[in-house]
């Protein structure tokens, strides 16, 4: 490990107006190593990564590539110098073939200037096979899983000459099996002597794949440690800046339940079938499955946003008509927060409009009274401790965790009977996570039924009283959440 660094950053600082995003950070990357960047949301990971990738070109400090000081001007410039980035949101084109995506923008041509399909397909096939993926490269990319799409993007960046790969949360949308494959791919790339900067929330992955780990906190570098010299607990305390007590708070006593709040019976649609599910009063049920298992669509169906073919949904003794509207669900006590805040919140609109919208008909049948709306929003935001608690600010200016709190708060004005939430803690830092879980627990203790739908085993295990596991559209297991662990869950899907 004494090879000279390919990339060396010295004393990097970057300000956004009043926010010191990075403060004299040093970073270096050696040939053939996987260097992980970890830290809470807002610690400066993304900023550092964007500087590395040439997206931010104005900063203080020095950037050395192969020992030479240089200034990147654009991401394209970075790629020309061999630094490529794999974004969290892939930039593949699903309708083009796998091979076309591999060579996007740079197709091999025959001497006549025509695209050399034969060569393109052959090279794409070979390269993918070498990485362990033998697939038909002439099929459109959309026919393949997200995991494969990501591999294709990685390959494209490599073939455009990148020696250094920056991977931003590459596994956040993958199923556990796909994660395992991606980690193998990273290992393969390292054996090919490529260097990888690996940014992730998932510390287990980081511990599996990284050679060295740099921890950022509040824009400062806390430490760079070698993987073999550290362990999870120490990493967490470095990230949090305090001694970590157990990763997440344990569940409290389950109150007695004798009353069914939500009963889903034989619910069947295209992606799931014969789903039976019961949530009692004062109970949190975790519905767990890999991405694509159909559990998110069950949640949507309960809220009336996914068309089902048969089955029934009963809330507090009242059976809904088949394919009821969302308005109907809301009026009969169903609340729903989706896995995508971007989809469910109006980022440019003030908090109060976001909070009052689901209940506007009840708050004001004809003419909304803004003062009353703001007051309602203020109370709702206080209930879940949104920071800063200003109902007039646009929700998009809040941090991810606080946005999620707004997405929950909007349902508290007229308390629902059953609260359905998909991925309530996705992409949040540890602090925000435990706050959101605390809110859900409070709802449970106040006698709502809560259904937490998730593909993150940690979320389900840390919050649910009972766990229901879905796999490929069917429920495969129902268990009390006692002595359950991640491995058990993962083996079931």
């Amino acid at each position: 490990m004494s090879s000279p660094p390919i990339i060396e950053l010295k004393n990097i600082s970057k300000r956004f107006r009043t926010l010191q995003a990075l403060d004299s950070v040093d970073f270096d990357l050696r040939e053939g190593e996987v260097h992980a960047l970890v830290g809470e949301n807002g610690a400066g990971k993304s900023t550092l990564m964007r500087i590395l990738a040439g997206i931010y070109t104005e900063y203080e400090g020095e950037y050395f590539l192969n020992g030479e000081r240089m200034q990147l001007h654009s991401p394209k410039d970075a790629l020309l110098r061999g630094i490529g980035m794999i974004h969290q949101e892939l930039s593949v084109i699903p309708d083009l073939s796998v091979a076309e995506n591999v060579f996007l923008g740079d197709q091999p041509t025959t001497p006549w200037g025509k695209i050399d399909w034969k060569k393109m397909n052959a090279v794409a096939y070979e390269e993918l096979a070498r990485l362990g993926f033998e697939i038909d490269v002439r099929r459109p990319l959309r026919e393949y899983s997200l995991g494969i799409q990501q591999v294709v993007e990685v390959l494209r960046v490599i073939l455009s000459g990148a020696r250094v790969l920056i991977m931003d949360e590459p596994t956040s949308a993958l199923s556990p099996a796909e994660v395992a494959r991606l980690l193998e791919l990273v290992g393969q790339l390292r054996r090919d002597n490529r260097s990888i900067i690996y940014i992730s929330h998932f510390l287990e992955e980081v511990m599996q794949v990284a050679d060295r780990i740099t921890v950022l906190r509040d824009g400062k570098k806390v430490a760079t440690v070698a993987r073999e010299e550290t362990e999870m607990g120490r990493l967490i305390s470095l990230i949090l800046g305090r001694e970590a007590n157990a990763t997440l708070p344990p569940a409290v006593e389950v109150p007695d339940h004798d009353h069914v709040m939500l009963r889903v019976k034989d619910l069947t649609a295209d992606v799931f079938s014969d789903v039976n599910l019961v949530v009692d009063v004062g109970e949190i049920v975790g519905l767990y499955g890999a991405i694509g298992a159909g559990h998110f669509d069950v949640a949507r169906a309960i809220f009336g946003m996914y068309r089902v073919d048969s089955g029934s949904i009963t809330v507090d003794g009242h059976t809904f008509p088949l394919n009821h509207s969302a308005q109907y669900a809301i009026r009969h006590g169903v609340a729903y927060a989706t896995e995508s805040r971007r989809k469910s919140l109006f980022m440019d609109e003030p908090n109060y409009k976001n909070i009052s919208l689901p209940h506007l008909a009840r708050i004001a049948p004809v003419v909304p009274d803004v003062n009353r709306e703001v007051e309602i929003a203020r109370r709702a935001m206080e209930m879940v401790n949104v920071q800063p608690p200003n109902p007039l600010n646009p929700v998009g200016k809040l941090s991810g965790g606080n946005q999620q709190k707004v997405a929950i708060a909007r349902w508290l004005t007229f308390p629902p009977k059953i609260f359905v939430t998909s991925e309530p803690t996705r992409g949040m830092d540890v602090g925000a996570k435990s706050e959101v879980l605390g809110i859900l627990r409070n709802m449970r203790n106040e006698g709502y039924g809560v259904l937490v739908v998730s593909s993150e085993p940690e979320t389900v295990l840390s919050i649910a009283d009972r766990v229901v596991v879905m796999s490929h559209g069917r429920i495969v297991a129902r268990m009390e959440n006692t002595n359950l662990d991640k491995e058990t869950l993962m083996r079931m899907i």
Partner: protein
Amino acid sequence: MSANIENPNLTAAKSRERQQTSQERWKQRLSALAPLWTLLALALFFSLASDSFLRPVNLNNILAQISTLAILGTGVTFVLLTGEIDLSIAAVVTLTGVLSAHLYANLELPEPWPLLAGLGVATLLGLISGVATTKFRIPSFMSTLAMSLIASGLAIFISRGRIVFEISELSTFLGSGRIGGQDGIRVLVIVAALSLLAGFLVLRYTRFGRYVYMTGANKSAARLAGVNTDLIIIIVLGIGGFTAGLAGIVNMGRLGSAQPQQIQSFLIDAIGAVVLGGTSLTGGRGGIPQTVIGLLIYGTLRNGLDNIASIDSFLKEFITGLVLLVALIVNVVFSGKADRDRTSG
């Protein structure tokens, strides 16, 4: 961040931030007014370049000239705010005129039934476009384009291609009457003002208005909050049809005849004026005040060019287009909407 709220540095930083945001807010306010600056610049230019531009008579003319457009623009504002578009308005204007003239002149229906029938059909066509758009997932660009053909086809069929000169007194009153004698205020202008006012009140102060904005701002979020976005879009296209019908009746009264030939410029002018005012084509941003400014810009430009004698009259359309494009660019640049993120748009 929330963990170290007692940190004095952070508090200082926060108050700094507050100052900056108030500065920023001013900047935003100024740039949000970009269309207003465009209007003032044009008005200033024309009043310097022409002696006749600023005369009260001419200013009155401008109002009369943009009144039909204002009625159309009210509906177009609703439609654009939801992120949809209505390409059938010009044809519906024509159809409504021809239909009600036909009912009045040839079938001799008593007033006000010909007008109400015209308005009803116009609204119905809008609602049909809405159903096609939402329930059958045909983009409104296509469904209203088809509706445009249907409406103009009906107009030609009903009139057999002939101009109807006999029109009802009521529509003559609406289109070219005046209240308060020879120099009184034109009824046309009042109708336009009322339609803009009604649109303004509905959009600004009602629950329905809120739903319109929210549907355009983020359709999936609106749905997830229980808003029936399909219904909103159907109603909004119905409103677009209704205002097009109203414009058709007023326009017929103004011209004194019902002509089966479409006035294509209505479509471009109405959408152009609304967008010029600052209402976004993608929905969620804008409103009636913006539309008023857009209409005034349009009126000033069209009228101003007529008032400068030295301009080749065959060049006017070209100049109008050019000024439009420049004004739109200025709007985008000044309102800071030019995207930093180069991957989007």
